[in-house]
């Protein structure tokens, strides 16, 4: 990133990242739903923060589980965060006291770590959930298009998207099913592979059945049939999910072509072993996958002994989900180490930007010293012809450029050097560059 494109605070040599927010851990749903930002509101809020001079770059990330404001500030973060928190309350018509103890504040490295954890799904209610990465991408895309981000937030959010993707592909944090509905569908895939071209019959039209249907549809199931005692509810669910409905009286006929049967009705033993045996025969002996989510159980347990039939009940799936939850948690340290790696990269980038801006200040300082020296020696120089004086000016300017150019180039190219210069404050003090700002 060329120095001249870096925003004003970077030109001053400091990257200050501020974050405030509320999430499912700090605020109850009643409060979270009051501070949700629509995309338009998010743009308006970031404009307010930038136009008031509080932030140079701003981005609002708002999902059902979190509302967070990210910004790059030219002044101390504590003051900025107070302003950001006030805006969060004012924007949604809340009294500041309502946010007391509900808002978290993070600065610089910790703000970066927080965003990277969010993008990786480590800060989600359901560990490793995938939707958040898409939500971060969308929020960033909108802010970028709106022009409320700058070099720092662009770099920060691009890094967050990169680390989120890596955590998903290189760890198992987001791989295994974490709900019984999803576990049932994933198990069906372990039997049939691609679900396209297969048929599923859903018995029941309640919320559990709906979740299963959603997952089946997302996985590209070939045909969906919903059977329910109330035909209207079956039709409603089928219509919403792009399936068909069948009458309860024709249940066995509806089951005949099914590869997957999911049942979640309040009817103990509604599906008997004999019924499944007939269905299996009519089906040509092909594999049949049955998920019984009903309590009491809808499928006669003895049906599990039928050849080429796989029967799972809610306890079986519950155990799988619990096992998967533990497995996901065990992957968190690996995800954290990827995050730490990307934080180092981001900080190295910040250091390089700071270091490059510092060499710019060094150049200014040397040029100023040269001017002062030439002024001091003006009498001696006056005896020289104008042409010689011009040459001295040109030579000293070239000398300064050479002195500054080498470290500048090396800082641009060498990450290791930038890391060694992480304690760049020492250099700043050494050259007295801070006093220039003051």
């Amino acid at each position, binding site marked *: 990133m060329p120095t001249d494109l870096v925003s004003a605070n970077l030109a001053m040599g400091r990257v200050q990242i501020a974050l405030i927010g509320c999430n499912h851990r700090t605020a109850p749903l009643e409060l979270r739903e009051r501070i949700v930002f629509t995309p338009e509101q998010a743009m308006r809020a970031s404009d307010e923060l930038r136009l008031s001079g509080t932030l140079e770059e701003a981005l609002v990330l708002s999902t059902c589980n979190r509302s967070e404001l990210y910004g790059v500030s030219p002044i101390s973060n504590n003051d900025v965060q107070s302003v950001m928190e006030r805006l969060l309350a004012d924007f949604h018509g809340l009294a500041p006291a309502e946010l007391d103890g509900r808002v978290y504040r993070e600065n610089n490295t910790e703000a970066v770590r927080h965003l990277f954890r969010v993008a990786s799904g480590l800060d989600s209610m359901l560990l490793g959930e995938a939707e958040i990465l898409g939500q971060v991408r969308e929020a960033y895309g909108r802010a970028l298009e709106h022009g409320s981000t700058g070099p720092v937030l662009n770099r920060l959010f691009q890094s967050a998207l990169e680390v989120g993707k890596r955590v998903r592909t290189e760890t198992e944090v987001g791989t*295994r099913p974490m709900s019984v509905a999803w576990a049932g569908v994933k*198990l069906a*895939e*372990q039997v*049939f592979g691609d679900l396209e071209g297969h048929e599923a019959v859903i018995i029941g039209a309640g919320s559990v059945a709906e979740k299963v249907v959603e997952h089946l549809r997302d996985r590209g199931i070939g045909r969906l049939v919903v059977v329910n005692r109330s035909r209207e509810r079956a039709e409603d669910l089928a219509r919403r999910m792009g399936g068909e409905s069948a009458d309860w009286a024709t249940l066995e006929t509806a089951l005949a072509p099914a590869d997957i049967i999911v049942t979640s009705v309040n009817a103990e033993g509604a599906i008997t072993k004999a019924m499944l045996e007939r269905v299996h025969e009519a089906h040509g002996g092909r594999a049949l996958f049955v998920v019984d989510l009903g309590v009491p159980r809808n499928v006669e347990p003895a049906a599990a002994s039928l050849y*080429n039939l796989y029967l799972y009940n809610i306890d079986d799936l519950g*155990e799988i989900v619990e096992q998967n939850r533990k497995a996901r948690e065990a992957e968190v340290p690996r995800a954290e180490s990827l995050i730490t790696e990307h934080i180092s990269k981001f900080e190295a980038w910040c250091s390089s930007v700071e270091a490059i801006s510092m060499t710019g200040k060094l150049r200014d300082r040397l040029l100023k010293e040269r001017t002062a020296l030439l002024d001091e020696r003006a009498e001696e120089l006056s005896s020289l012809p104008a042409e010689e004086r011009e040459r001295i000016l040109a030579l000293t300017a070239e000398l300064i450029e050479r002195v500054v150019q080498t470290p500048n180039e090396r800082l641009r190219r060498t990450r290791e050097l930038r890391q060694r210069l992480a304690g760049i404050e020492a250099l700043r003090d050494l050259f007295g560059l801070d006093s220039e700002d003051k």
Partner: protein
Amino acid sequence: MNNAWGYASIAIYAASFFCYARFLYTNDRRIGRVATMCLALGIILQYAALLERSRWIHSVPYDDLYGSMSLFAWLLGVTYLGLEVFHRQRSVGAFVTPILLVWISLVTLLAPRSAPAPPPARGPLFALHVTLNTLAYAAFALSFALSLIYLIQNRVLRARRPGLVFWRFPALDVLERMSRSSVWVGLASLALGVSFGFVWEHRLIGRYSAADPKVIVTLAIFGAYAIYLWLASSANWRGARAAYICAFNFVVVLFSYTVVNFYLTGFHRFM
């Protein structure tokens, strides 16, 4: 003989196994593609090794045990690669490439350091007979491996206690289809290979020696796999039962490859 091509193919097969295992773990398509490319490169390098050996011994490369085993490994790789491309399914690679790797490493360790006496020239029909039959054995070996994976996966699913690795295994349906395809390849090449053998023998000695134990066992193998294909598409036998039959059939193949070759037949020594 300098076996640089052979060692290079082992290294590339090892890389392919590593990438397939990584692909199984991460599901990263790029790594999967690298795995397939490594396997294809390994096959090319092993082909070069076989070619070099043919030039060295002035004959087809399968006249001794080393050559026969080496050709078997090569054809196993080729068959698997073909099935992978045909079924667009890479998750089995992590299970097949280690077999290939162990086999080819054993073969390389067993490789004779001195050139065997050049065998008598037997013509292209004989070469086709041996190559196609070896291809059939390789395809049957592959179907055996696929059936074993199927049985493990099926057992886990039936027990309703899938472990953590379970989610990375290929689906039952995929395993069954790949196994059937592999058996089809095996049966077709066995039919052609045996036919070429009969024609070659008739040209050589003017009669068919159908009473040779190797021929009888080979025809039995043909029948056993044909029965497998028939049962695998029938209502009561498809699935795990068919996989058991397929696995058992390979035991007969191994019997033919070892006991029959060494003790019961006169001229079918290494096929």
